[in-house]
């Protein structure tokens, strides 16, 4: 129904050239665009990224993995990935139903920047960064630099996200993801927790824990992470978690839960996350 401009470039240079003019709404799987057009059906200028080559799939780049911006959640679920991606895979299974997982892209999830985006906590725990391309070139931002707030990112109007870059962990890593919602499928999170643990000789050598839906942007828990280093990697890690470790969170009251509950649940899920990571099945 759009009367606006529509462009579906087949080359990245065409895309970034067009973006220089500004004013474009970027489109990939459409799973956020169309739900925003149920009542307001006014048109806008669409730059459809889905014909750009080379932006879909996961490639091993030596010291890191490169996830193309157009990689779908199903692609992530089906890809053979190292165990540190287990949390991301679990999150991928929670993004809508399979219809959404087949269409929605990982870059779209990040650019949409919902406080409840399922992809953000696991990617934070993977120390992911994002690659932004424009006519001026390419820049790489860490994910925490990229997402600035509720539906706000550091992407300039002339940029598009071309990849998510995930460094390989230094040591054997375990990962998981826990989501709390009021129903089983198709649910926006009340709280979610992702965790990655690197373990050497039975001891935690690195820990990254992130909590989502408890602040405008999902947050890592650096105090907790520091407290875990050097600990024995077993289920007792859960006991290390204190309320103070969650001090950086700022949950809100909404229809799904109140802030107080969110904070309590974040604590519970963080402990369970560590119990799982410390005692992998």
């Amino acid at each position, binding site marked *: *129904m*759009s*009367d*606006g401009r*529509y*462009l*579906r*470039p*087949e080359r990245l240079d065409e895309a970034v050239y067009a973006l220089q003019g500004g004013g474009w709404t970027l*489109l990939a*799987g*459409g*799973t956020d*665009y*169309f*739900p925003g*057009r*149920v*009542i*307001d*059906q*006014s*048109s806008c200028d*669409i730059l*459809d990224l*889905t*014909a750009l080559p080379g932006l879909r799939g996961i490639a091993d780049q030596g010291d890191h993995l490169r996830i193309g911006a157009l990689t779908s959640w*199903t692609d992530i679920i089906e890809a053979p990935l190292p165990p540190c991606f287990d949390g991301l895979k679990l999150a991928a*299974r929670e993004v*809508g*139903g*399979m*219809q*959404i997982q*087949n*269409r929605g892209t990982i870059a779209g999830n990040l650019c949409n920047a919902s406080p409840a985006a399922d992809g953000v906590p696991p990617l934070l725990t993977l120390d992911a960064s994002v690659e932004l391309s424009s006519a001026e070139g390419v820049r790489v931002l860490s994910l925490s630099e990229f997402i600035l707030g509720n539906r706000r990112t550091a992407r300039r109007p002339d940029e598009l996200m071309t990849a998510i870059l995930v460094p390989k962990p230094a040591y054997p890593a375990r990962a998981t993801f826990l989501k*709390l919602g*009021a*129903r*089983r*499928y*198709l*649910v*926006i999170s*009340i709280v979610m927790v992702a965790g990655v643990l690197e373990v050497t000789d039975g001891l935690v050598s690195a820990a990254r824990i992130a909590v989502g839906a408890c602040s405008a942007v999902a947050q890592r828990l650096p105090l907790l992470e520091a407290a875990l280093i050097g600990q024995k990697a077993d289920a007792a890690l859960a006991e290390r978690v204190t309320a103070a470790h969650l001090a950086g969170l700022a949950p809100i009251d909404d*229809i*799904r*839960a*109140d802030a*107080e*509950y969110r904070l*309590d*649940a974040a604590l*519970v*899920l963080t402990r369970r996350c560590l119990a799982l990571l410390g005692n992998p099945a």
Partner: protein
Amino acid sequence: MNIPLTENRISLTVNGTPVTLSVAPMRRLTSVLRDQLGLTGTKVGCDAGDCGACTVLMDGKQVCACLVPAAQADGAEIVTVEGLALDGRLNALQQAFHRHGAAQCGICTPGMLMAASALLATQRHPDRGQVEDALGGVLCRCTGYSKIVEAVMDAGGSATPVIAESGSAVGARIPRKDGIGKLTGAEKFGADDTPADALWLRAIRSPHAHARFTLGDLAAFTAAHPGVERVFTARDVPGSNSFGIYPDLKDQPVLADGYVRFRGEAVLALVGDRAVLERIADSDIPIDWTPLPALSGTIAAMAEGAPVLHPGRADNVLIEGRVARGDLKAGFALAAVRSAGHFETGFVEHAYIEPEAGYARRIGERIEITACTQTPYMDRDEVAHVLGIAKHAVRIVPTATGGGFGGKLDMSVQPLLATAAWLLGRPVRMIYHRPESMASTTKRHPSRIDVEAAADAAGHITAFRFQGDFNTGAYASWGPTVANRVPVHATGPYKVGSALCTSRAIYTNDTPAGAFRGFGVPQAAIAHEAMMDDLALKLGIDRLEFRLINALRKGDTTHCGQTIAHSVGLDACLEALRPRWRQLIAENIAFNAQNAERRRGIGIGCMWYGCGNTSMSNPSTMRLGLKPDGRLVLYNGAHDIGQGSYTIMAQIAADAVGLPVDLVDQVYADTDLTADAGKTSASRQTFVSGKAAELAGLDLRAALLRLANAGPEAVLALDGPVLTITDGADIRRLDLREMPADQGHVLLGEGTFDPPTTPLDEDGQGVPYATYAFAAQIAQVEVDIELGTVKPLLIAAAHDVGRSINPMLVEGQIQGGIAQGLGLALMEEFIPGRTENLHDYLIPTFGDMPPIEIHLIEDVEPLGPYGAKGIGEPALVPTAPALLGAIRDATGAVIRQVPALPHRVRKAMREQGRPL
């Protein structure tokens, strides 16, 4: 692939056929399929990827067609539901759906079939978990998902559908007679058909809950927007600018006249070109709003000095209901134990997957409305009132209705379409979008209930007091029905020594509340069942046994003074559940001894439900004809909204006449073609219309027997047009082709039934209903003590249905009712202006339903067809009380406000429960 779409031309393959189309690149694939290719089997439920009704296969993967821009479908291979049947024959998956009764209303069925097809392509024998994962993106509001899962798991099965022989249709699990079209995509719902030249109608609605407004220069607005044909206002409504369920309570305007009472109220109707109308921003509409303070909730509406929303309704009280019997004071004085409580429930949205839709056309001096509905005959009368024309000048042609549950008992699109089509003389079409449907149509009444009960030492209830305030929203709708039905049911299905049950329906500036499966009884049941638990616990009597002590039995007198002589199967329901109850209690004790983070509990809920209108006439008439070719035709005005009246009426009529149900063709509800069979509501169709169908069948049979001078025991058989009547040794053959035919029938039988009731006096004494359904359900849950999340593990349901006409359909009603009861208990809460979509408003998904065990109790009702009573509403009433009782059993916490969202459960545990 990937050619820039300079000419907006795309080529794709649809169901194996290459298609090239000129299309706007950002048009949704749903629109391409439905509007351009005419493939309306793909349904639109939300346009937001929340419901999955539009699921199709795109290059073999399931996608929501509403989220795919046409340009991205270029080069793709698309398979829709229309592509499943091979050479006109259902494929194995569709056959499994048919045999298992997996489609009820059918609106989600195409999405379910496509999601299942994607799964079965890679997994021929999926397990339950795989089915749930694969289909989890599609919502169903009717079935409770059980039969869908069974069908997908049995897609490779080879069983054949049940066929009923002559005289054995009643009680047979035959597949739906209207089932095939639901599986092929052929069935037409409200949005699926329209005259080619229809104009589009868009309602402009109030953004304020309470406001005055003035209209600006509409002529200038129209002139400035080519493609806008007309803008209708309140002044244009040809007859009375008012509608409403009760003849004396037509208090809702078709189009508001300078004053709105709720957010979402229709103010203007824009008619013209669809694309033009959809792009007009609300801010371009010349309306000057003056917002007023809004009365949200009953407390605000009844506060001193609150504005009166409707003239003559001081205190904003629409109506009060009352039932009083016995000496309440003496009853409480007899008490060994007593308990009191306050309970609150919120708005609940019907969330049928089909938003309201239809079209109207003027044919000479008549108007014809083709739309989804639950009540064609009431719609006819209402449209006549709005247009100021005679009832016979209105024809209502119901489309297939994609779920109703009470929400399609009120008019929605009808008065707007009728007004526009009548005045323009051109067909006019309207489809609500999901937020519009949720914002503007009725909801379950929120309630605030105070209840108090007492029992003597032997466990007999001596006194019961109930007061419920029901928020009826901005307009009356079915508020009086709720206010009248609740006091009659508020004690629960128990003998009570004395009772005083009162209710009020109160106007507010909230969304109008109307009918929703149970008319206030589910809310009341939460309160009365909590009292039963309290009294039982205080007396140290098992909760099930306490209910059995007090259960109404045959010959008992209710608190309305009605002695129920027949069909009171509550004790049988409780006894059927007792073994499972005891076993689960033992299991829970063992489990809880081993676990601290998770605790299990069990709860029980009982209910009764009067079938049909409360103390008011509600007749149904059915006609059954025999045609010269030897086919029967049932003129079936009992509109099937998924519950199965197009199947069971045929079963009943066939057995009554004594011929095979396979010979029954039907003319479905159409006010020009079928007699008035009332509304599909109040659990009345099986009981009332079913009885009419039986009488019609008996009437036709009597006529046939008279022709042959045969006795009542004679056996009928049809072999094409030859009717054989065997009466003992006498065999008579009639060639129907040689008999005179009148309007296509050689004979026509007719039956009418109106359940016998009496008016209630000022104390509510009388006979409000001719019969009652009874039920008990038990629920086992596991509560995560740290998070407050509740996982239902099992529900066992025992329902006295009098006689099960079609057990497969009865099970479907129970499973679906339980799903809605579970939603009410655990997750559903409509908040005006905030949850007007299907991702903020949560209904149960595949993964939320526990296994359900069903016991059908058949304590026959002599008035009903073959002993049958209703099941539609009874299925949902006991579920929430059972779940809440189970949460309490697990945690010690009484949940006094539903839904029991995790934060509320955890708060209740902290405040009243066992130490965490």
